[in-house]
């Protein structure tokens, strides 16, 4: 019943676009989540440098506006496949920083309890099917969730992300083609951060992949990926389209990977001017200015949000560091499931969805 209620509410709200705007609190939230992502990843990088993170380390420095802005449009019963530059989406949906940090450190308190590491996680209790390393496999999985919504006539949306480099892989094509044929309620976010590991756009494709969307039968839009509201509005429209039974959307977000592919990557292949140029477009600083200039926030408020976030992340880091390593006996458990369980619902902070 909760199910049909939620859908009903969603349904009715869709018919009233008046709801589909951003309140002052929403804007504070968008900012807060971007800052949280930045702080979490900086903290994690420190832990990595301190040798507390086994294996490798990846972050989404400079791309915070994309995962935060996109995830922010979703309702509780929508579903996501979140990728490796998209910590913001996990935070928006309700993953707390301690569980992210603990996961990186391979602790029992991490989202996967130590079974998997770095960004290869997702909280099923928050409506996420976490990524596999193979890219962009999750685009098909997201389509599969959307197929379930469509066949059950549920006004729900699946959303996923991929980098521009992943569009070269055959599975990307299969996902786009299948979603287009069946007009699945899925939103695809293409994060063009200029590089696939070290490979520049010119070696990934001859023509910008957003151009392909219409050849799959759905719209492709291009947005400033460093403008969180631009991403939000594009994602909102795409989610509405999907929910209304009008099929998928491909949203290309122009951005820049401000760190190496991973912490081990010296980025020698990236022209320094390029980084300087994009540094000036930092999504967090830009939004901070905008909050003050256009949305009547005081600099103190903005600073307040920043310091709150920093404090919260510090607390979470302590909690994560207290989390024990997993019991070795777990290594051989859980290969097979005893029963199927439904995914849980995600947090939906956007005011449109009502008080969470």
């Amino acid at each position: 019943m909760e199910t049909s209620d939620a859908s009903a509410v969603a349904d009715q709200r869709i018919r009233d676009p008046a709801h589909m705007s951003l309140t002052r609190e929403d804007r504070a939230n968008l900012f807060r989540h971007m800052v949280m992502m930045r702080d979490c990843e900086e903290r994690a990088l420190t832990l990595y440098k301190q040798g507390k993170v086994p294996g490798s380390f990846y972050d989404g420095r400079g791309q915070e506006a994309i995962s935060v802005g996109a995830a922010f449009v979703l309702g509780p019963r929508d579903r996501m496949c979140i990728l490796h530059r998209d910590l913001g989406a996990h935070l928006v949906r309700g993953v707390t920083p301690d569980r992210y940090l603990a996961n990186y450190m391979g602790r029992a308190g991490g989202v996967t309890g130590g079974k998997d590491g770095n960004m290869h996680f997702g909280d099923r209790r928050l409506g996420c099917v976490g990524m596999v390393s193979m890219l962009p496999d999750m685009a098909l999985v997201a389509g599969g969730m959307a197929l379930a919504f469509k066949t059950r006539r549920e006004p729900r949306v699946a959303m996923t992300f991929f980098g521009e480099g992943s569009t070269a892989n055959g599975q990307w094509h299969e996902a786009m083609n299948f979603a287009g044929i069946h007009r699945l309620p899925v939103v695809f976010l293409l994060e063009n951060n200029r590089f696939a590991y070290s490979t520049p756009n010119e070696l990934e494709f001859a023509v910008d992949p957003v151009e392909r969307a219409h050849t799959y039968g759905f719209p492709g839009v291009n947005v400033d990926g460093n403008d969180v509201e631009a991403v939000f509005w594009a994602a909102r429209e795409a989610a509405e389209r999907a929910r209304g039974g009008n099929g998928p959307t491909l949203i290309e977000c122009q951005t820049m990977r401000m760190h190496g592919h991973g912490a081990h990557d010296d980025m020698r292949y990236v022209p320094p001017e390029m980084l300087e140029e994009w540094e000036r477009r930092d999504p967090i600083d830009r939004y901070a200015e905008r909050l003050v200039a256009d949305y009547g926030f005081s600099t103190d408020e903005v600073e307040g949000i920043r310091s709150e976030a920093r404090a919260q992340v510090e607390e979470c880091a302590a909690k994560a560091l207290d989390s024990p390593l997993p019991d070795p006996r777990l290594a051989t458990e859980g290969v097979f499931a005893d029963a199927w369980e439904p995914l849980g619902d995600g947090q939906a902070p956007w005011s449109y969805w009502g008080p969470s």
Partner: protein
Amino acid sequence: MSATATASATNEVTYLQAISDALRHEMARDPSVLCIGEDIGAFGGAFKVTDGFVEEFGAERCLDTPLAESAIIGTAVGAAAEGLRPVCEMQFADFISCGFDQLVNVAAKLHYRQGIAVPIVIRLPSGGGFSGGPFHSQNPEAWFLQTPGLKVVTPATAADAKGLLISAIRDPNPVCYLEHKGLYRHVKGEVPEGEHIVPLGEARIARKGTELTVIAYGSSVHLAMQAAEELGEDIEVLDLRSLCPLDREAILTSVRKTSKALIAHEATRSCGVGAEVAALISEEAFEDLDAPVRRLTAPDVPIPFSPPLEQAALPQLDDMKEACRELLAY
């Protein structure tokens, strides 16, 4: 429920019909079950397993996909996470190589990594013997056993084809269901109507004996039975039915009794299921063995097209008899 009520009655049906009946039974019982694959709708499937399904259950529950195996499996994984129970059809088992990554990296590892159960079935029309050639005759089961997280079943009889498919559909894990094309129309048998369940992981003693155990699955079970009959020797034939989980107890119990083991399958030799079973036996029943554990398999070659070549490549009845004789004489 009615299924159980009628479960007593049986019908003589083909292996192919039993597969079709199992699917129909589960789709009628559970609205979340759907079939997804190439040409399974209007055409009813390359082997007609889903003939009439689209009329009976509608196009959404008998979904014709584009020519894209990764899409079939990846879509099924997502749909399963959201509560559907997809039964994927590979047009031929050989095409699993085209969806391999979604199977081994997404479906197989999702529960271990994230606690997300993936209740999907991959139907794999496998095997040779009718000049299918190198791309329509493969037996990929060993690849799946080298992939933790996949269950693997290989029915040999019509009753098991039905009972194992129903169990596979109800199992919350990815199950690779290998249906041997050579058995589709050549094997018939009494199959319980309605509800009929054969649990995953339980081997079946197809023939009792004390002198030698022939361990087989799929098409090789029939070769073994015929060889045993024609030789008139006291041979036990163990039909594995499931390869993962593997019924280790049944294997060891039989071999401890007979002290001699021959493992037979149609798949190629190196790192095949025969290797695993032979290793298991020599590890766990070493003291009980009176003879070397032997394997009867295809050699390590692609399966050729032309009848004389294919017959030379695939184990034949005479090879089975010869292998049994040698072991009995050992």
